[in-house]
């Protein structure tokens, strides 16, 4: 065995962190590597394995991987499968770990040791880190690590990852084990030597359990019996004590009487906050973008580049950055609910309803995230155990009105819905906005029901979820997750939307009309020609070629619609911002060239249409199938057309 070199590129040793969901694995990872990653109090927030570098003792380093939480190596979700593949070096390009650090929750040793026992069977060198020793002590559980170590025949260390207690000893143990790896002698100790399945299990310790249900159950029972005997020999506990506070709160939060009112109240508050608190910072950013555009126009020489900057890039990207405050606020609240454990309670409350439309309680979290953005929403479906439920959730996630639709709704509502109140306190504009959100939710329920009824009917669906203890959210965790969401949104804005702005500017500026040209220059441009070409298709929806350009330009990202429409209307220098577009639309409403019915039909179109490249990309990645991805685009576009058609045709007959 070579001595570990100290330069970072020579970190060849691989350490994997493995453990149950919510055992504090990611907190430990952050503490060991110094990188701050997202940890949350909801089963399965670690959606991908994260890598960091670990400094060893006395010198040297190792690559350390934080794997998703799992209860067993026969897990069925994509998340859990990653762990199994990683420890059996089944992922191309991924090295076999030299050492597995198994993190267990001291307050729940029995269940946590199940995974450890399976890992011992793989024959990999293992260190056991018993986390949350402080919580265990409070609960009256005494864990004797030296006894555990003797019975399991591997190094056992007690740690408290949240307060960084015991970490240097852990690093020391990791360093020693990497230099002198050794396996536990307790491999298959749970299986009696004369057991009829002994030979099968010995030959393939991970895969052996999938065979028939009776075998699975009886092997698991044997394993748990062994674990129980070890826990009895190495721990002492007074009465199995209960997290009283969590139980009391749960009786209220998940009660039949108060559960749903509390939940709807919470979400009403959150949505209220998104619109109220975001207004001031949004005005500020909007003003800054307009100012920058004007300043650039004044100080740069007139020409193609200036035009690209002031008419394409700055307003294009600016119109999108304006939404950062709303996204930040939404993710801030989701972060709080996630970290304190409330989201699992919401999943519990909603499972009945979700089951009726063919989904399950867990689908609620992806769908909630999708109100901010469908991309993180679709990514978080990885923790849903049944494939059918996961697919159905992915397919309807983009029907939740995301923050990219807000600019479209906001401009159209401001221009066409009177700013008046019903019964002097319900805003008509607010009501219209709420209507769009509800329309999307209802559509999603119908689509989910149809999918599960006809396409995915044969696949099993079940709901089994751990309820983590309720705790006070950590500011650092919540702020970190908010920051991550904003950064990923801005990354999107600076790539896809920047590219769109440039392409759109080009298509609407060229070919340049002759200098004596009198008509509408945009109509003659490439973009105009495209808009005119699709006009027959969208005429029944109440849209003309100008709106057609807006729709086409926003195929990659919905919010580009605003920029698209502004470009088409050739708004003057002072009117390039959103309020300029609103004023222009109001003038068009007065002269009758853009009716309120068209505006409503257009909003309905945006409720359903799949105008988002990132969503399609992440759908392809998560489903691994072009059929589902194209299916998503196809059904959403079809639904959008149909819903707009009905809206416009019925509206023009009745109104």
């Amino acid at each position, binding site marked *: 065995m070579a001595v570990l070199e100290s330069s970072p590129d020579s970190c060849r040793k691989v350490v994997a962190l493995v453990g149950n969901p919510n055992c504090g694995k990611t907190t430990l990872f952050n503490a060991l590597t110094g990188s701050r990653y997202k940890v949350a109090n909801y089963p399965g927030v670690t959606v991908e394995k994260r890598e960091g570098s670990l400094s060893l003792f006395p010198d040297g380093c190792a690559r350390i991987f934080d794997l998703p939480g799992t209860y067993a190596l026969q897990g069925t979700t994509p998340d859990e499968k990653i762990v199994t593949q990683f420890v059996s070096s089944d992922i191309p390009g991924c090295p076999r770990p030299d050492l597995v650090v198994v993190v267990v929750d001291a307050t729940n040793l029995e269940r946590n040791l199940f995974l450890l026992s399976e890992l011992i069977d793989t024959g990999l060198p293992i260190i056991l880190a018993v986390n949350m020793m402080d919580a265990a002590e409070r609960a009256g559980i005494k864990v004797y690590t030296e006894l555990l170590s003797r019975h399991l025949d591997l190094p056992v260390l007690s740690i408290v990852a949240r307060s960084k207690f015991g970490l240097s000893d852990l690093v020391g143990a990791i360093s020693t084990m990497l230099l002198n790896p050794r396996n536990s002698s307790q491999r298959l100790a749970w299986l009696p030597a004369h057991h009829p399945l002994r030979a099968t299990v010995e030959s393939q310790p991970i895969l052996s359990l999938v065979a028939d249900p009776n075998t699975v159950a009886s092997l698991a029972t044997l394993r748990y019996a062994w674990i129980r005997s070890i826990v009895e020999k190495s721990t002492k506990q007074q009465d199995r004590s209960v997290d009283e506070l969590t139980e009391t709160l749960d009786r209220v939060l998940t009660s039949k009487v108060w559960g749903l009112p509390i939940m709807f109240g919470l979400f009403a508050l959150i949505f209220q906050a998104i619109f109220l608190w975001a207004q001031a910072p949004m005005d500020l950013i909007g003003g800054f973008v307009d100012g920058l555009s004007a300043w650039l126009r004044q100080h740069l020489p007139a020409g193609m580049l200036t035009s690209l900057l002031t008419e394409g890039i700055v307003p294009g990207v600016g119109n999108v950055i304006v939404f950062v405050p709303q996204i930040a606020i939404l993710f801030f609240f989701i972060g709080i609910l996630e970290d304190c454990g409330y989201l699992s309670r919401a999943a519990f409350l909603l499972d009945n309803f979700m089951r009726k439309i063919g989904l399950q309680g867990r689908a609620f979290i992806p769908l909630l995230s999708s109100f901010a953005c469908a991309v993180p929403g679709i990514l978080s479906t990885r923790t849903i155990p049944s494939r059918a439920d996961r697919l159905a959730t992915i397919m309807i996630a983009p029907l939740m009105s995301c923050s990219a639709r807000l600019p479209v709704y906001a401009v159209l509502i401001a221009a066409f819905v009177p700013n008046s109140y019903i019964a002097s306190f319900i805003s008509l504009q607010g009501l219209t906005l709420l209507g769009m959100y509800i329309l999307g939710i209802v559509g999603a329920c119908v689509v989910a029901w149809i999918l599960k009824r006809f396409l995915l009917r044969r696949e099993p669906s*079940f709901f*089994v979820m751990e309820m983590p203890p309720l705790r006070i959210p950590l500011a650092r965790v919540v702020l970190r997750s908010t920051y991550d969401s904003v950064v990923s949104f801005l990354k999107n804005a600076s790539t896809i939307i920047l590219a769109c702005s440039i392409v759109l500017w080009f298509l609407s500026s060229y070919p340049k009309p002759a200098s004596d040209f009198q008509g509408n220059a945009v109509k003659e441009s490439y973009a105009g020609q495209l808009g005119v070409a699709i006009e027959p298709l969208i005429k029944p929806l109440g849209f003309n070629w100008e709106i057609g350009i807006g729709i086409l330009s926003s195929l990659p990202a919905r919010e580009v619609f605003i920029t698209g429409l502004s470009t088409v209307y050739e708004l003057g220098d002072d009117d390039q911002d959103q309020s300029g577009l609103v004023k222009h639309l109001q003038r068009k409403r007065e002269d009758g060239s853009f009716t309120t019915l068209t505006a409503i039909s257009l909003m309905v179109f945006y409720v359903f249409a799949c105008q988002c490249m990132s969503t399609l990309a992440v759908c392809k990645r998560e489903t691994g199938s072009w059929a589902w991805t194209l299916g998503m685009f196809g059904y959403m576009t079809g639904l959008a057309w149909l819903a707009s058609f009905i809206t416009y045709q019925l509206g023009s007959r009745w109104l």
Partner: protein
Amino acid sequence: MKANVDNGSEKGLDTVEVGHKAVVSDLKGCPAELLTKLVSMGLVAGSEVTVTQRGFFGSPINIRLFGSVLSLRSAEAAHVQVQPV
């Protein structure tokens, strides 16, 4: 695991009332995926569970098992045969 069919006191976990304890005796008629999940979370013969909460129409049902609380539908809990304590 053979079921103790003639034992009158054995019943499905879904029928246990809130606040009551029971010991798991068997898992019956589970689809393989669900069974793997349930046993890995500790629902094996001999484990003691306490029902702590039920949703509308009795589902989902929350049970305390070892040091944590699990939530599952009553349809899934029906596969878990228990002996009341």
